[in-house]
């Protein structure tokens, strides 16, 4: 493996400014585009800082193997995958335990918003591919997946809006809640939450945390994340409209 030249930084936030200059509640610049994989029934690319993720949807389509078929609804199956060169040290091909777990929680988050009972016995396959990883890849992937489903015309209760939040330390070691973690914050921060909501439903669809937070800190972070989610929700809707506004696709 590579030597990490980056030793632990003295602070991740100072005077309300994060290492990359963002404010605590500020998300990185995001770029969202649908229709990036023409072969797919729907697709989307999300770029968030240096993280870049593509989601492609195939389905509803026939489900193999047969013994996994559900008679009363479709199965939403996410495969989260990282390109071998998307990370600092080459990722070996094939899904590791981390990818399997992420695939599971993303599938579960999407199940809730897709109207699966309209497509009994079918599969709705969502392939989330990380092109470049710089923290918060699973939440970027979930945003892309949600948009790809919408792009595919799959009927949904709501879009899924996802982002990370966590706790960064300042030069005195005190913690501050921040949203949309980048690599350094993810590596060295004091808590890291992967979070997703269906804004119109006001429901939490993804919730994973590592770290060390008080319930109060969590509540503060979640408030900031809900606020940031509104902006992301708008971006998603904007991106989904784009092909029609340009009169193309």
């Amino acid at each position, binding site marked *: 493996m590579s030597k*990490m030249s980056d030793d632990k930084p003295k602070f991740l936030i100072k005077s309300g400014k994060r290492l990359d200059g963002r404010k605590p509640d500020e998300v990185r610049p995001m770029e969202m585009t649908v229709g990036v994989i023409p072969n797919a029934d729907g697709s989307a690319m999300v770029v968030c800082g240096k993280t870049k993720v593509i989601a492609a949807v195939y389905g509803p389509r026939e489900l193999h193997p047969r013994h996994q078929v559900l008679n009363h609804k479709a199965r939403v199956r996410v495969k989260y995958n990282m390109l071998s060169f998307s990370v600092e040290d080459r990722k070996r091909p094939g899904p590791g335990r981390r990818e399997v777990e992420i*695939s*599971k929680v993303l599938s579960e988050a999407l199940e809730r918003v897709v109207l699966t009972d309209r497509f009994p016995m079918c599969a709705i396959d969502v392939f989330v591919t990380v092109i470049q990883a710089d923290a918060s890849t699973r939440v970027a992937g979930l945003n892309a997946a949600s948009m790809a489903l919408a792009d595919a015309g799959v009927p949904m209760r709501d879009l899924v809006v996802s982002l990370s939040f966590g706790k960064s330390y300042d030069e005195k070691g005190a913690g501050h809640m921040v949203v949309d973690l980048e690599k350094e914050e993810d590596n060295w921060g004091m808590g890291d939450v992967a979070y997703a909501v269906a804004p119109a439903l006001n429901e939490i669809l993804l919730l994973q*945390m590592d770290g060390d937070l008080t319930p109060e800190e969590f509540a503060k972070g979640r408030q900031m994340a809900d606020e940031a989610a509104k902006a992301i929700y708008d971006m998603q809707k904007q991106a989904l409209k784009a092909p029609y506004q340009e009169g193309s696709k």
Partner: protein
Amino acid sequence: MISNLEAKRIRDAVASGTRTDGRGIDDFRPIKVETGVVAKAEGSATVSIGGTSVIAGIKMNLGTPFPDRPSEGVLMTGAELSPMAHNEFEAGPPREDAIELARVIDRSIREAGVMDVSKLCITEGEKVWMANLDIYPLNADGNLFDAGVLAGMAALNTAKMPEYVDEQVVRENLKKQVPVAHQVVSVTFARIGDALVVDPTRDELEVSEARLTVGVCEGKLVALQKGGDGSLKPEMVEDAFKRALKHSQKLLKHLK
């Protein structure tokens, strides 16, 4: 798989503030912890929570440190949903349920800094102790998460270090404790309708909309994992935290 009738019974019970096994919404099943159950392991424990029973064991082996942490040992957690423990578990490589279980237990224990990995270094950058914690359900009736964390902690608390002599591991007459710095427990809830029941049985999990596991260490949250195809309401999460902190006190007593 449970019948529609049984599912309805469970939902109706919870809706009326109780549960089909007579417990209240916020009651754990009886807990039993036994340590030192496998002499071949450096540490071991069986834990039962009601009808759920798991066994955990530690083996200490030699390994290479991660390049970015050259002076730290490593803890690796594995879980296997052994087919002996439930009619629906299957033989074969671990599936996503087993992987999620292992990873959540791993994170709970690792993120709380339970093991003082700095004390597991033999030669910086070259040789460190690697602790393999493996967890197997013996009988699965829901809430494998909390039983697994408890069994893992009980095994770690009683684990002894082998000696490193002449470049080999000697496992006789173990005396030195494996360095444990903190105690962590997890508390798992299932959402059934608008209620969150604690310590769900397997049947309850099957009818539930979602699962939430909260890892707690010294009054703080150290791990969270939502599972299940449904959602959680924001207020449920706040509620779960309060209740998890309260339950954690009782669970910690089982770790002495």
